[in-house]
């Protein structure tokens, strides 16, 4: 080679880049989003540090906090085990027995999710006004949240290889022993996941418990927030609540253990046989039927009663239309923002997995597990102190939605980006597309179904979010949830009913989506 051949002109040199260009901008955006999402966590820590031990200790160690801790602890300790028993039993009945009408029962076991938790509560309190305290809290929580346990367990049960149960039976194990020694251990991950979901909802729920006057940390924080707005007392309670969430996350990790229950062996598993219930059929039918009556029948009957009482007039108020429009607008805007914010992180976890990316991703999940009340409190404080112009604007609210629902968006996006091989992006570049353009026209195009699912899940979540919306929504604006809440707070149950009906109708696609998801997992 000649020296002239080696010499490159300065123009040529300028075209040579030192790194591939798609990673850097994506990493920067992902880092910004993660840091933004971690603000609520930073806020809790900062407030604790700022307040100092001397000032915060009396706020944390007092009888009121102990009382809340006992209430919240008992609620979790009673509700979660009941949900586990109900979820596993229902899953077994609909998946592994010859129960008549299995498909219908399976739908009805997911359907209570369409009814927002505080609407469950409204239905019960208006039907039985004397309901209150721990027992009522446990009852309504179980009815509102047991589908969160049913869904993962039924999906896991579908994927179990019946050959293992056959092997256990051939080794002389009775059916009950097979269930306990072979099936249950394989369901452990699903049960842990479901229990975590139920537990986090119990910690974060406001409306359900406020309606029946049962005090948990979340209701107490809102009460404090209402009375002192931005006082250290509310912030300290939020700190304790965050510690409770971490305790729950830790407990789940510990129970889950590190064992893997992957199927060993090749080929597709044969579908499982069904246990013949025989004479036990009728008593077995009582469980799903009873649950359906309590979790769907009671809300629908009560709503029906109030709809009749309110008549057509309840539907004809301008406020209803305004609230519906507001809800739709914010749901869609929030869903779009959340999905967009999750995109760089989802792409990085697939294309450039590394310790740094895993850390930021984990951070997003942890913050997503925080109750809406903590995120709301954090954003109120932060905007008041450092971002006054966006305080009490829709922007703060949209940011809160994005922080709360980022994990939902990440999960759907990640799964669909993983299905678009990196090779396709490279080939698009070799055909002359700029890396960002290649990402857009190939990977994102292929991930579109996942992005749509992510937007749907987030939008549905936002459409009946109450706690953070209440704290952050601009003055004078109402969503379906907040309007329903203020009307039922004034005991105007008849006027509130149309709002509840609209929320249920809006949530129906969620039921369909989740049910379809649990079925599709089985197909793999």
């Amino acid at each position, binding site marked *: 080679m000649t020296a002239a051949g080696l010499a490159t002109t300065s123009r*040529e040199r300028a075209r040579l880049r030192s790194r591939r260009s798609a990673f850097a901008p994506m990493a920067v955006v992902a880092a910004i989003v993660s840091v933004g999402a971690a603000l609520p966590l930073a806020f809790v820590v900062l407030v604790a540090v700022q307040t100092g031990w001397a000032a915060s200790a009396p706020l944390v160690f007092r009888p009121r906090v102990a009382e809340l801790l006992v209430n919240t602890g008992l609620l979790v300790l009673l509700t979660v085990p009941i949900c586990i028993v109900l979820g596993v039993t229902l899953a077994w009945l609909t998946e592994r027995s010859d129960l008549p009408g299995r498909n219908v029962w399976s739908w009805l076991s997911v359907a209570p999710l369409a009814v927002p938790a505080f609407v469950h509560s409204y239905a019960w309190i208006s039907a039985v006004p004397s309901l209150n305290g721990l027992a009522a809290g446990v009852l309504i929580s179980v009815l509102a949240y047991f589908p969160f346990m049913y869904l993962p367990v039924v999906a896991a049960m579908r994927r179990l290889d019946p050959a293992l149960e056959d092997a256990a039976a051939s080794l002389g194990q009775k059916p009950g022993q097979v269930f306990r020694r072979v099936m249950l251990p394989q369901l452990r991950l699903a049960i842990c996941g479901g229990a975590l979901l139920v537990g986090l909802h119990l910690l974060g729920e406001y409306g359900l418990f406020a309606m029946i006057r049962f005090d948990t940390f979340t209701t107490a924080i809102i009460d404090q927030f209402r009375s002192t707005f931005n006082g250290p007392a509310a912030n300290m309670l939020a700190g304790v609540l965050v510690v409770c969430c971490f305790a729950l996350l830790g407990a789940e990790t510990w129970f889950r253990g590190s064992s893997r229950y992957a199927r060993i062996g090749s080929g597709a598993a044969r579908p499982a046989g069904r246990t013949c219930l025989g004479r036990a059929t009728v008593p077995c039918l009582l469980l799903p039927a009873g649950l359906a009556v309590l979790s769907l029948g009671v809300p629908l009957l009560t709503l029906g009663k109030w709809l009749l009482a309110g008549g057509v007039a309840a539907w004809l108020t301008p406020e209803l239309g305004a609230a519906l429009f507001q809800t739709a607008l914010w749901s869609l805007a929030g869903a779009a923002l959340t999905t967009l914010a999750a995109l760089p992180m989802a792409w990085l976890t697939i294309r450039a997995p590394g310790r740094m990316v895993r850390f930021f991703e984990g951070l997003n999940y942890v913050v997503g597990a925080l109750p809406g009340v903590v995120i709301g409190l954090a954003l109120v404080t932060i905007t008041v102190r450092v971002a006054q112009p966006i305080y009490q604007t829709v922007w703060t609210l949209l940011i809160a939605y994005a922080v709360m629902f980022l994990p939902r968006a990440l999960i759907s996006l990640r799964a669909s980006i993983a299905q678009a091989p990196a090779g396709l992006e490279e080939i698009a570049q070799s055909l002359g597309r700029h890396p960002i353009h290649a990402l857009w026209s190939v990977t994102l195009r292929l991930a579109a179904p996942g992005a749509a699912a992510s937007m749907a899940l987030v939008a549905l979540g936002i459409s009946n979010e109450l706690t953070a919306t209440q704290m952050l929504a601009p003055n004078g604006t109402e969503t379906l949830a907040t309007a329903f809440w203020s009307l039922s707070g004034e005991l105007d149950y008849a006027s509130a009913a149309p709002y509840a009906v609209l929320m249920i109708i809006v949530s129906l696609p969620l039921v369909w989506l989740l049910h379809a998801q649990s079925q599709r997992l089985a197909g793999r």
Partner: protein
Amino acid sequence: MSFLDISGISKQFGAVTALDGVDLTAERGSRTAIVGPSGSGKTTLLRIIAGFEVPDAGRVLLDGEMLADGPRSLPTHQRGIGVVAQDGALFPHLSVADNIGFGLPRGFPGRDSHILAMLEMVELERSMLGRRPDELSGGQQQRVALARAMATRPKLMLLDEPFSALDTGLRASMRKAVSELLQAAGITTILITHDQAEALSFADQVAVMRAGSLPQVGTPRDIYFHPRDRMIAEFMGDCLILEAEMEEGRARCGLGHLEIDNGRAQGTVQIMLRPEQILLVPMEGRSAPPPNAVRAARVLEIDFAGRTSTVRVEVRQGDVASALLLRGVGSRGLEPGAEVGISIVGPAHLLAR
């Protein structure tokens, strides 16, 4: 200066050295095959040429233009290099026509007729244009991938084991068709493969890759008959390798005194014979081997595999009998126990130690 000029390319992945100072040149319009076992670094080299990876050191020049100079690298989309991947990598969300037209700039004049011309060039029917990639067979997918890569008239075409997913019969015909197509279009081509027969039949220059470097580059015949060392000899096909002593310009070994291609060698050497140089001639009742045979031998075992077989023979040299395993030789008319004469065609090749 060569059309493609690669010099001193090195690449590390963590503690693993994938490429260690690779030099390679290719002339305009030529076909080069890079062949080596899996994990030898050939795919990394291809990815560096394509711009998917950035080298730690070394230069890549194409037609006088600097593509990579150490870690400074021209982005893939500005290179004009076509790539056909192992599985075709068709975009699943686009029809065949849109796949082929993917790289054409917006408002490309005569876009549809160009796409059709590309489709016909790879001998696919017009009715395929509206199909989705999942409706095509493996061979058809590869043809579409080739049409897509050729549609933008690349300066260089990189083929990354494009035939390995096809079944045996289709593989040979696809290889021939692709080779002729690229030659007719005058596109310089680099083929990556682990299949030596594919490399030898496809290319006019073969580069053997081993542990991140290219120990030998040459014509297919050169690489096959004159491999530099034992590893390359064995990798490029069946062979018989013998220890020998040099005596008066000939190699003395278990098969007698053989002519070798380098008569100036001295001392103890290693020589190689390809199976087609070894003929086993039945004695047919004669007591002495035929006049052109170098040795008499007895067939011990035949592992019959059709056109070629593996034959184990016992060669007698005076009172000493030694067994030899001959891979890939013809075994027509032979039975275990038969007496044969061994003839050698052409000189044996001297291997470097």
